């Protein structure tokens, strides 16, 4: 009885914390730059997201689990049952509960705040930029894009600043590309918009900013940024061929030499180009199934912990009822 009420929740919480620690360090090392990743970028993205979500859920559950012993105490008092022999002191359980709530709360608040900030800041910049584009850009209906008269080569998309998605391409970029290559670039950008990749990268960026000490999120951010480019490359290649997409990469890189240099962003161009020119074999169905199972299994530990917490949760309801003065 003592074990069930007091020690089991603490063991579960400790196990969850250990699992989160494993996730933050060991598992990303295995996933990072694994050779199969470029063969199934969408699946890899899913895995990174599953790991990130599982880390958050595990920590929140661990924190909530730490409140259970104190809730048990309260429930026993409320039900006028005697406190079993050998159970932990009330003060100790109260301290644990306080710490647990602090942990769960701070994880949720930190993650929520950082992700929201990331998305809002990006949206504001996109909105301001869209207004500027309305002023100087010319819509090219045949291209479904906005053309800007500038020598500096650039092709990018603006997701959703005012419910109108835009693809922007400069005359400098158009001059550097063949018609087929230009179409490939536009298809690549359209894939970003269709797949809402700005949400994927925005959330990954936000979590990395929220938890800077955790290698998992830092690696997830870099990998997801690269992988969404590969997903968009696949979409473009499917429509206009890999040589056109690879050629667009190279021609735009060449053209950017003439334009004044600006700060370099994250560059995974080598991997993208190698992947386009020497396409790796896609994963087989069984391999995909294993990958999907792996992603889902990331949630198993917290799921099991939750089910193991059923009895204490019932106690939680009793205490809650008392607090709300019902019954």
């Amino acid at each position, binding site marked *: 009885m003592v074990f069930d009420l007091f020690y089991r929740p603490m063991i579960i919480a400790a196990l969850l914390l250990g699992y989160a620690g494993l996730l933050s360090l060991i598992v990303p090392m295995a996933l990072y730059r694994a050779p199969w990743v470029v063969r199934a970028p969408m699946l890899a993205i899913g895995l990174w997201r599953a790991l990130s979500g599982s880390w958050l859920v595990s920590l929140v559950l661990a924190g909530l689990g730490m409140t259970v012993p104190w809730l048990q105490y309260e429930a026993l008092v409320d039900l006028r049952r005697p406190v079993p022999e050998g159970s932990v002191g009330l003060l100790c359980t109260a301290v644990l509960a306080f710490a647990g709530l602090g942990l769960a709360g701070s994880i949720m608040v930190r993650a929520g705040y950082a992700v929201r900030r990331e998305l809002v800041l990006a949206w504001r910049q996109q909105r301001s*930029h869209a207004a500027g584009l309305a002023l100087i850009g010319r819509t090219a209906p045949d291209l479904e894009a906005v053309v800007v008269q500038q020598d500096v080569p650039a*092709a990018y998309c603006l997701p959703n600043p005012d419910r109108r998605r835009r693809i922007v391409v400069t005359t400098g970029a158009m001059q550097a590309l063949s018609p087929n290559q230009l179409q490939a670039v536009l298809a690549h950008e359209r894939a970003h918009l269709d797949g809402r990749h700005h949400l994927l990268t925005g959330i990954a960026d936000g979590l990395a900013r929220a938890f800077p000490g955790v290698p998992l999120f830092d690696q997830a951010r870099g990998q997801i940024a690269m992988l969404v480019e590969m997903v968009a490359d696949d979409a473009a290649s499917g429509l206009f061929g890999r040589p056109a997409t690879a050629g667009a990469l190279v021609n735009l890189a060449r053209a950017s030499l003439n334009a004044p240099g600006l700060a370099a962003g994250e560059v995974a161009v080598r991997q993208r180009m190698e992947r386009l020119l020497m396409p790796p074999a896609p994963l087989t169905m069984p391999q995909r199934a294993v990958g999907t199972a792996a992603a889902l299994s990331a949630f198993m530990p917290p799921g099991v912990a939750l089910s193991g917490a059923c009895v204490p949760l019932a106690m939680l309801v009793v205490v809650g009822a008392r607090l709300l003065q019902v019954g």
Partner: protein
Amino acid sequence: MTGPREIPRLGELEAEVMRQLWRRTAPATVREVADELPRERPLAYTTVMTVLDNLHRKGWLRRELDGRAYRYEPAIAEEEYSAELMRQALGPTTDQVAAFTHFLQRMSPDEVEALLQAYRQLAREAERPELGPKA
């Protein structure tokens, strides 16, 4: 709230007037601007005058007194504004937030050279029939 890199935004009418003035080759009066506006939105003279005055106040336009009326012309060249807009899209963003998804991120000249070399080598290898898709 405006940071140093934030491009100022204009209302729809202000934008239309700005575009028109960029198209012109000489400074224009309120009457001339109003006449040139698309016919499907006939506007009061005072409305156009207010818009031009606002734009001047915000620093978009210069004006000179010609007799009793002002003549307005752009204070910022279209090219200059356009270049600034592209700099916003390409340059390091405020707070390092990646708001724009580029087809190709900016690369240093060394990186470009390395990419071109790799491309030439890969293109040569890809033509060899025995090198199929990587397993």
